[in-house]
């Protein structure tokens, strides 16, 4: 049995069914990300101003990733336009670029995540805070106490607030610091559990990265085995590319807001 309206538009909607479907799906996606954005606003306005992290993320890296995603958006729309112009080889080229750019985006994001998971804050017994990237970890936890030592590349501050607003409190030059286990009152890396900022940062960017991976898988299928349809039903295949493209542009659109909100403000 043939699925109706995969190519021809329905008379009542003026659209083929998949298009209505993807827009309804995107509407639900807007509400999903909207709920998380509204959570972000609530967390931010509820936080003490001096304790809301600023300057924690690498702006050049985030900018590069934004440019990667924008470039993938133009290759996606060009892939679709190539099919409309009956240029299948160009479609293959543009969508190969899209897939490579998607992997680049996820690769850069993974690098940023790794950086955060390797970044530690130590609350020391003398009331100071050591903060930096772990070089050597020879610490062992015995009950609530720590033994051994860790070597980090970072700096020591007297007020924890100095670790939060890095735009206001420019960090001192980093050096190699040996942190003795018995001196540690509390330690933790900058994972999602660190504070509300990292929690919402990992939730938002993690969900977005899952969308990038999901979109890349679909586009990868349509670029590879799914492209056989071009020979049998080119119009339907072109519509599939349009639908996957709409999802991809939505992913780009979400990042357009995530980037300034998380990296710059």
């Amino acid at each position, binding site marked *: 049995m043939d699925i109706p309206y995969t190519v021809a538009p329905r008379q009542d909607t003026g659209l083929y069914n998949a298009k209505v479907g993807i827009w309804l799906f995107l509407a639900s996606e*807007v*509400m999903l990300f909207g709920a998380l954005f509204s959570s972000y*606003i609530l967390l931010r306005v509820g936080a003490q101003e001096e304790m809301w992290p600023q300057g924690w993320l690498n702006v050049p890296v985030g*900018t590069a990733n934004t440019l990667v995603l*924008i470039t993938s*958006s133009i290759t996606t*729309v060009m892939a679709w336009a190539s099919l409309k112009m009956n240029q299948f080889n160009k479609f293959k080229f543009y969508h190969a670029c899209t897939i490579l750019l998607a992997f680049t985006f996820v690769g850069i994001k993974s690098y940023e995540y790794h950086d955060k998971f390797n970044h530690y804050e130590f609350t020391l017994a003398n009331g100071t805070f050591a903060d930096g990237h772990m070089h050597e970890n020879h610490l062992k936890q015995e009950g609530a106490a720590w033994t051994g030592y860790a070597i980090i590349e970072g700096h020591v501050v007297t007020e924890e607030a100095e670790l939060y607003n890095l735009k206001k409190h420019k960090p001192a030059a980093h050096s190699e610091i040996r942190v003795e286990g018995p001196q540690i009152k509390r330690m933790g890396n900058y994972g999602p559990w660190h504070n509300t900022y990292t929690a919402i940062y990992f939730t938002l960017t993690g969900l977005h990265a899952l969308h990038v991976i999901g979109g890349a898988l679909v586009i990868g299928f349509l670029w590879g085995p799914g492209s056989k349809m071009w020979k049998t039903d080119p119009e339907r295949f072109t519509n599939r590319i349009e639908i996957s493209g709409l999802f991809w542009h*939505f992913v780009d659109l979400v990042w357009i807001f995530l980037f*300034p909100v998380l990296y710059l403000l």
Partner: protein
Amino acid sequence: MSDQHSPDHFSHHVRRYLFVFYALLFGTLITVGASFIPFGNHAVNIGVALVIACGKAFLVAGYFMHLISERKMIYGIMAFTAFFFIGLMFLTIWSMKDFPTFATH
């Protein structure tokens, strides 16, 4: 946009897509640059960044997603979505002034 068009017609579209692409690149650089300008009030920085982001979102949604020339039904879906999205944001804003009056322990 599922209508079939001639290659000539689409080459016109392609030029438009490229223009939008350059505008998005430019908008990104402007966003980064503006975030380093001390406007005196952080709220202004937030406003500027969000205005630029809205402009970029309009370009992506309008031209790459073809919302600028879509069917009524899509506009209907988007209007509903916008209504509930704005409602969601306002719920957050209203809750900011809604502090519990009972004693906390």
